């Protein structure tokens, strides 16, 4: 398949193994094939492209989308029905509640002229979710060829290894195929492939080199890297666009982009801010530290007294009881006393926000005990807003 190599990069050996496994249309193949590899290593893409290019009758299912057995089985049958009656004409929706019905209906559908004498492929993506569905689904699909006595092969795609799928009493072992992770050279090749036409390939390749230099030790996920490449390219091109440097001034370009990428790692990579906010930052050239992030501390606006209750809870949770006298005798007048009822409401609202949690049983009516579950950074941010230096009061920092 010459043009397949242009569409599917760096995966020649996996493509050829799969092709030889599929064999000729009417030949039998392994009843089940289990393909595993890291996320974004091309499993879904290669399988889909190969099946489409070779025009083999297949049904592609995602186990996250079809999370109950009924959804999964019905969709498979309906898609197969569409395959066999490809001349249009809307056929009735098939319902299927159990695996027993599925096998029976499957046998009926695959008797059709357009589907018999050919291997039918069922691809189950994100197959790790099958383990959480009904217990007979996974072993049933592994032996579907035997149960239905038809020429069918089921492919399982997952990032979890096969040993974690095997049921207790064993099952029909599939053929296990590994999709290796991309090497740094492969990543460079694939990322450089989607360079925008206005700039030269070398220019883009140099940019990808810098990007990988910053991110490769942390993350090898192709999807993440592509996302970061697209987001940060305008900033990289900025000096060239403004006329301050030309395409070959690698040092200047590097000096411009490197701090920006480092900041990206702390914000966009962690999904602390959204990509649209990031793009705005680049355009307006504002300092990203001033941006309102998506994380907890900037979004929770607590009323004044609740903040003090939270600080008190934190101190109570983390300071040993005997040190309380030492910290609090002198300053005890600072915190005003509010009425008891209001305090109780504020505490329940803090529990709902999961800043405090209930420790012990609900039926302890006279003294429910709470624990503060916020991190040090969070409580410091809160304390800062009320001008309270919490560090002075923490035992661990003495």
């Amino acid at each position, binding site marked *: 398949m010459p043009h397949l190599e242009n569409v599917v990069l760096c995966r020649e050996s996996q493509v050829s193994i799969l092709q030889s496994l599929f064999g000729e249309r009417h030949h039998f193949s392994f009843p089940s094939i289990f393909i595993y590899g890291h996320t974004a290593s091309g499993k879904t893409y290669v399988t889909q492209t190969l099946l489409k290019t070779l025009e083999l009758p297949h049904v592609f299912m995602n186990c996250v989308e079809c999370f109950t057995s009924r959804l999964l089985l019905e969709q498979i049958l309906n898609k197969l029905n569409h395959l066999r009656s490809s001349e249009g004409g809307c056929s009735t929706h098939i319902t299927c509640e159990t695996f027993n019905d599925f096998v029976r209906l499957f046998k009926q559908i695959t008797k059709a002229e357009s589907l018999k004498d050919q291997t039918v492929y069922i691809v189950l993506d994100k197959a790790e979710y099958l383990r959480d569905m009904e217990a*007979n689904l996974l072993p049933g699909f592994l032996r579907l060829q035997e149960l239905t006595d038809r020429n069918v092969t089921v492919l399982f795609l997952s990032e979890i290894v096969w040993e974690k799928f095997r049921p207790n009493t064993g099952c029909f072992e599939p053929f296990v195929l590994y999709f290796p992770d991309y090497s740094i050279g492969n990543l460079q090749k694939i990322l450089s492939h989607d360079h925008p036409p206005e700039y030269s390939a070398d220019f883009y390749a140099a940019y990808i080199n810098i990007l990988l230099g910053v991110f490769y030790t942390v993350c090898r996920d192709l999807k993440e890297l592509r996302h970061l490449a697209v987001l940060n390219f305008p900033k990289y091109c900025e000096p060239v666009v403004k006329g301050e440097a030309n395409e070959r001034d690698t040092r200047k370009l590097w000096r411009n982009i490197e701090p920006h990428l480092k900041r990206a790692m702390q914000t966009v990579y962690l999904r602390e801010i959204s990509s649209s906010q990031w793009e705005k930052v680049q355009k307006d050239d504002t300092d990203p530290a001033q941006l309102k992030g998506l994380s907890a501390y900037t979004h929770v606006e607590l009323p004044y007294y609740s903040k003090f209750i939270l600080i008190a809870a934190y101190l109570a949770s983390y300071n040993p009881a005997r040190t309380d006298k030492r910290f609090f005798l002198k300053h005890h007048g600072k915190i005003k006393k509010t009425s008891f009822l209001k305090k109780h409401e504020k505490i329940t609202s803090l529990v709902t926000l999961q800043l405090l949690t209930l420790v012990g049983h609900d039926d302890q009516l006279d003294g429910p005990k709470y624990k503060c579950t916020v991190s040090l950074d969070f409580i410091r941010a809160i304390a800062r807003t009320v001008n309270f230096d919490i560090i002075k009061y923490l035992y661990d920092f003495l």
Partner: protein
Amino acid sequence: MFHGFQFVKMSSRKSKSNNLIHAEYLSQVQRILRERFCHQSPHSNLFGVQVQYKHLIELLKRTAIHGESNSVLIIGPRGSGKTMLINHALKELMEVEEVSENVLQVHLNGLLQINDKIALKEITRQLNLENVVGDKVFGSFAENLSFLLEALKRGDRSSSCPVIFILDEFDLFAHHKNQTLLYNLFDISQSAQTPLAVIGLTCRLDILELLEKRVKSRFSHRQIHLMNSFGFPQYLKIFKEQLSLPAEFPDKIFTEKWNENVQCLTEDRSVREVLQKHFNVSKNLRSLHMLLMLALNRVTTSHPFVTAADLMEANQLCSMDSKANIVHGLSVLEICLIIAMKHLNDIYEEEPFNFQMVYNEFQKFVQRKAHSVYNFEKPVVMKAFEHLQQLELIRPMERTSVNTQREYQLMKLLLDNTQIMNALQKYPNCPTDVRQWATSSLSWL
């Protein structure tokens, strides 16, 4: 159909026409062998189970011809040939004239009929009695089943047709409520109502423990064991027979060449080593079929015969360590976290750890002067930690609850030290300082 040797005489066109012939024959070879390896075609021979086969076929004949009721369990590990045995026996049985007209078969499978209601409907369907049952409502399972069997009675004779029930994944039926189906089937097989043969296939050796007392007492306690009890010499013979082409193959010369090649393979030392390794891991024929299928995949028109190298490659593919493969694709930061966890396991003797502990251990490494390149922010390290959790390389000790913060949740590492060190050896471009840190956590030595 041209004969091979006609083309062989014309030497100038020999290689090209040989190629054409090969292509067509190879396609046929693929078809036959694939059916044999993947689909368990019924023409395969029985290896080493002749005694069990005789036992089974006798039992079936007694039910089918003499009207005697029987029950038997066929027990054997996965891939030992239980389904193949029963299918072979049924095929031979149906070749007897009076049997094929009389005897009915019902095939049930524990994976498909997950409760007794579905099982009963399936039985009705397979006995073609759906019209007879119609809309009747029955008080109990037993009533329903006896109605079905009554309906099979022939008009003039008082005895009914013999029915053979084959229950695959028999142990799953033992998990149904009250084991109603099993109780009723065995009950009927003990009482003389209908000639019934109940044949259960299971991989569980302790199947009798799973049966309730009343079910067990009605079972005849006949068991046929298939234990893959052949040795390596017989394994070699099976290998040769499975890979050889049958005599009915259209071209005699090609068949001879192919089978001769197979004979050479059997005598080749490296092939024997591969087979010995495979045999030591798993004796059953299913895994042998997978090996042969992988070797067959490499057969093309330019490479028309299976070679020893093909078998060695196939063995490599079959015996990869999958966790090591996953570790191979981790980022350097994730590898550092795994090494930090390894050190914690060594110091605290496999006690569970949490993210904060791993982070502190990692910081000890980072704070050495030369390693500031690994000084990542804590949230970035947390994201790497969560990725490891997603890959199921680390596992929380108990299910995530809101009561503890994520950083303090106790986890366990699911890799052992040898796996980690082996994976590090193969890790591409592993930085030397990381590798050195892995071998020793002591920074001041």
